[in-house]
């Protein structure tokens, strides 16, 4: 095990670094999933109470959609083609892909993020957090088969954590 | 003392004969014991290896076989039950220049000594391990051994043993021995050849000698070793040659799929080309040979397996040489003062 402090190569399982004496024990002891971690790891996404998704067809006009999002306070739309999840369109997509081009009328399928990362209801909260952290996005659709059911947002996750921190 | 492979010095070694290896001790095995024959052949082959007599060591365990070192005029160590391979490993590690023979028996090597046998073979320590297998405990007067047949009635098993025997060759194979052979106490030429091969082998050489204890287990191997029947009931192996046996050498072993079967040349269209050719380097053939036995098959004798790989003592020596080459010969003063030191100055005391 490489000592994280001085980079010296130690034998696996060494308690202290043979070069600088740093404690290696704590670095390879697996932590049990107890308490808060256990709750994150163990609970399923349905516990988050993510709201039902708002789905739109791929041909829908993006200008109308942006207006609707603004009016109804929706920050994420699921885009379907033939009833199947094809992409996701969020306020971020709107900002990044429309800025500088004004309100051009285009089908939302041209601006959506296609083939989004998806989860199922029985996936755990930890998986959702991981996907968001790794992918850098704040929304993950929950599907059944290929039908979108709901959208989990980072906001839902934070709310869940906040209620359990106390 | 030099580091050459057979310990010979630069000047010529005086030619030794069998008599040089006979010690002054009266041989005390039971009359008719198979050990006499093994001893004679061992003494006979010793001169062939070119080692000076003082560089040859015999280490034995406990058992009738354990007496052998006393009858060899070399350095000898009659040690404790089952531990000879361990002692021999240490000797070889300290003195790679010596030729070391380990003399053991089926009880000494497979019962109490099983662990040490396995590990000395696994390490490929440069030893010749000769195991006298009489399928009984002779010295302690007749108890069953790990190679005794199932249900054997003895003093310690009056109702028959409830233990299954084990194949010593299979154990040697499982321990990855680099030389495995079997021979018979009364087949003098074959013993000689086998011991020669073991002696010349570089690495662990394991030889099972089917030996007859005429007092406590007479005739244990006679059914197939007897002069009249041995041609038909034993399979003499030779690397690269087909596995033929029988008085007319017209029977052989063939693989049917992966299973061995006995076939007769000339019957059912069998020709010599169908016979399995022995390959000393093939582990699957070795496994098969370790597991076939009379009466289902002829008993294989000869060299079952022979491969080449570095020995324990040469690897150990190699590491030392490498360490000296890369770090220089050890300096004791530097070693003692290694780590973090500080100096206390002399006081105006």
């Amino acid at each position, binding site marked *: 095990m490489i000592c994280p402090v001085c980079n010296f190569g130690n034998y696996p399982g060494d308690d202290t670094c043979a070069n600088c*004496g740093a404690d290696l024990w*704590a670095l390879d002891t697996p932590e049990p999933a107890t308490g808060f971690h256990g709750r994150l790891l163990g609970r399923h996404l349905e516990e988050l109470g993510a709201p039902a998704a708002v789905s739109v067809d791929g041909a829908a006009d993006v200008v109308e959609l942006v207006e609707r999002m603004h009016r109804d306070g929706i920050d994420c739309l699921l885009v379907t083609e033939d009833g199947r999840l094809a992409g996701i369109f969020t306020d971020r997509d709107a900002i990044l892909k429309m800025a500088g081009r004004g309100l051009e009328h285009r089908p939302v399928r041209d601006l959506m993020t296609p083939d989004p990362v998806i989860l199922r209801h029985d996936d755990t909260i930890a998986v959702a957090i991981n996907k968001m952290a790794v992918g850098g996005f704040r929304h993950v659709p929950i599907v059944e088969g290929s039908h979108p059911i709901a959208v989990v947002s980072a906001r839902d996750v934070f709310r869940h954590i906040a209620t359990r921190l106390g | 003392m030099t580091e050459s492979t057979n310990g010979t010095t630069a000047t010529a070694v005086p030619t030794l004969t069998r008599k040089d290896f006979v010690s002054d001790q009266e041989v005390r095995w039971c009359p008719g014991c198979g050990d006499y024959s093994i001893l004679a052949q061992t003494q006979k082959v010793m001169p062939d290896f070119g080692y000076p007599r003082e560089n040859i060591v015999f280490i034995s365990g406990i058992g009738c076989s354990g007496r052998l070192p006393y009858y060899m005029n070399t350095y*000898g160590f009659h*040690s404790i039950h089952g531990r000879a391979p361990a002692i021999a490993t240490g000797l070889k590690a300290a003195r790679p220049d010596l030729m070391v023979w380990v003399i053991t028996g089926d009880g000494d090597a497979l019962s109490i000594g099983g662990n*040490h046998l396995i*590990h000395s073979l696994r390490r490929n320590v440069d030893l010749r391990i000769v195991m006298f297998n009489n399928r009984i405990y002779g010295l302690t007067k007749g108890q069953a051994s790990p190679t005794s047949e199932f249900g054997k009635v003895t003093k310690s098993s009056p109702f028959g043993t409830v233990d299954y025997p084990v194949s010593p060759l299979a154990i040697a194979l499982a321990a990855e021995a680099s030389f495995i052979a079997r021979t018979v106490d009364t087949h003098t030429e074959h013993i000689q050849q086998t011991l020669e091969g073991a002696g010349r082998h570089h690495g662990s050489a394991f030889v099972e000698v089917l030996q007859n204890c005429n007092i406590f287990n007479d005739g244990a191997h006679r059914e197939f070793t007897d002069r009249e029947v041995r041609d038909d009931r034993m399979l003499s192996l030779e690397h690269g040659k087909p596995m033929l046996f029988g008085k007319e050498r017209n029977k052989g072993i063939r693989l049917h799929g992966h299973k061995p079967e006995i076939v007769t040349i000339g019957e059912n269209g069998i020709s010599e080309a169908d016979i399995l050719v022995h390959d000393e380097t093939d582990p699957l053939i070795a496994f098969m040979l370790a597991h076939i036995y009379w009466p289902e098959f002829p008993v294989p004798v000869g060299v079952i397996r022979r491969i080449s790989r570095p020995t324990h003592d040469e690897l150990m020596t190699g590491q030392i040489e*490498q360490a000296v080459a890369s770090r220089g010969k050890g300096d004791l003063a530097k070693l*003692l003062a290694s780590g973090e030191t500080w100096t*206390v100055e*002399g006081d105006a005391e």
Partner: protein
Amino acid sequence: MTTVRERPMTARQLERVTIRFAGDSGDGMQLTGSQFTRTAAVFGNDISTYPDFPAEIRAPAGSLPGVSGFQLSFASTEIHTPGDQPDVLVAMNPAALKSNLGDLPIGGALVVNEDAFTPVNLNKVGYATNPLTDGSLAAYDVFSVPISTLNARASEGLELTNKQVDLTKNFFALGLMFWLYDRSLDPTIRWIDEKFSKRPVIAEGNKRALRAGYNFGETTEIFHERYLVPPARLAPGRYRNITGNEATALGFVAASQLADRTLFYGSYPITPASDILHSLAAYKNFGVKTYQAEDEIAAIGAAIGASYGGALGITGTSGPGLALKSEALGLAVMVELPLVVIDVQRAGPSTGMPTKTEQGDLLQVMFGRNSDSPVAVVAPATPAECFDMAIEAWRIALKYMTPVAFMSDAFLANGAEPWAIPDPDDLPHIAVPNRTEKDGFYPYLRDPETLARPWAVPGTPGLEHRIGGLEKSDVIGNVSYDPENHHRMTVLRQEKIAGIAADVPPLEVYGAPEGDLLILGWGSTYGAIRSAVERLRERGQAVSHAHLRHLNPFPANTEAVLRSFRRVLIPELNLGHLLMLVRARYLIDAVGYNRVRGKPFRIAELEAEAERVVGELEGSAT
């Protein structure tokens, strides 16, 4: 929690301080302890240390089995133990506090990392309330420091992860302690720069933590006193810190050089002896051959084989392994080959407590073989002495062609003390020649003075002979069942060992050569006994101390020494092994003080027992 003190900072001089660092295994307590030790040593204090490793390989963070401790004592005088009790306990988390508080005396100082006293951590070890705030620590002088927070602040701006920053908090604690005891940061700073020369950011983080801890002590008002421990007057020379196991390994390497023979070490991993194998395995450029055998018996078997070939065959183990080696050790006695068996004793019986110390194998090594099968026995008294006794063990083994048992224990093995590094030229000559002369050679022809048989190694022309476990005829060396011969050989083997008594240094007495009470010890009880006797003598008690390094045979003057005192007290970490040997051998009514707790004796308990025994003498007629 800071308390404003109105008294100005004072500095008090002390003769001796004992600190115990305790924390999670991830808190770096071993490193902290050894750094403090080193600095104290460089400053000139005498030091003694005792690390207390967790017994489990891994335990969850913050749990009791995961607590790692390091106790050190430093002084302006010569000290012999790491201290009965700490004067100050540095506890980095609740688990460390819970498992160590019992050893802190009332009024002792307690420095805690208050940041670690979170509800979760408290809950892990069963604290219902926070001891830092519930008043339960009122009897102690508590200094509650937010070490984690302050440490994190010190590393602000550095490109270190949170984990890396947390790993520097032990340097904060170290810096604080350096301030408290007025020690320079320079040796540690130099050490940091050297060890982390390839990672300057880490080095900077560590240095900042160190300085932050020091400055915290300086600027905060929670500490009202600093302590000064002046340097001790140690003999001039070059020193290093050394543990018993390290000294043992070095001693055997030295012995192989002095004897000009290959060192062959056959061993099987066993706590607490494994480190000897690890050390020796690294010394290949000294020609050292190490062999990790498949079991304990193979280990000693291989060592015997190596000795048979003319090398120095050594095997090392602890109590359970020694039990396994009995038969082979008997073989070594019968074939009369030189062999050293190291026993780093630990608490037993059976598996016992593998990381705890004990002295329970003396009778085993004396008698644990079939028939009369004597081996010589030596026992170092301090960690550094393991070096000298290793060489002494080989001196005896080679000169008398006998196995020698080297009795160490877990306390010696892991404890450390300063060692005056010897010059190899000053070490004793122990080499013996191999027999080469053919004329008049017999395997058991004995040297008239030592009774040793000749060492004729394989490879020597003309000396071919057979040895083994069967009884041999005197001189000629053939297998013999002759009754008179067996008696004679048995007696000769006994006499050979007994004769060593004339060849070992006399038993020395610390204190007056006669008096009321002699405390007699062996092995690692040296430090506690010596310290106790020093204190008793200061109080005018007629108590002296003698410490055996040779246990079989005893030095020639042992009986005379023992009889010069009215009573002999033998403290041992067993139920009376040396006691039994002394009583049986000399018919002296010695008494024992026996505690089998898996821990070394405390100086105070030996003082008390000695006073009690002397008191009894006073009460009885002479």
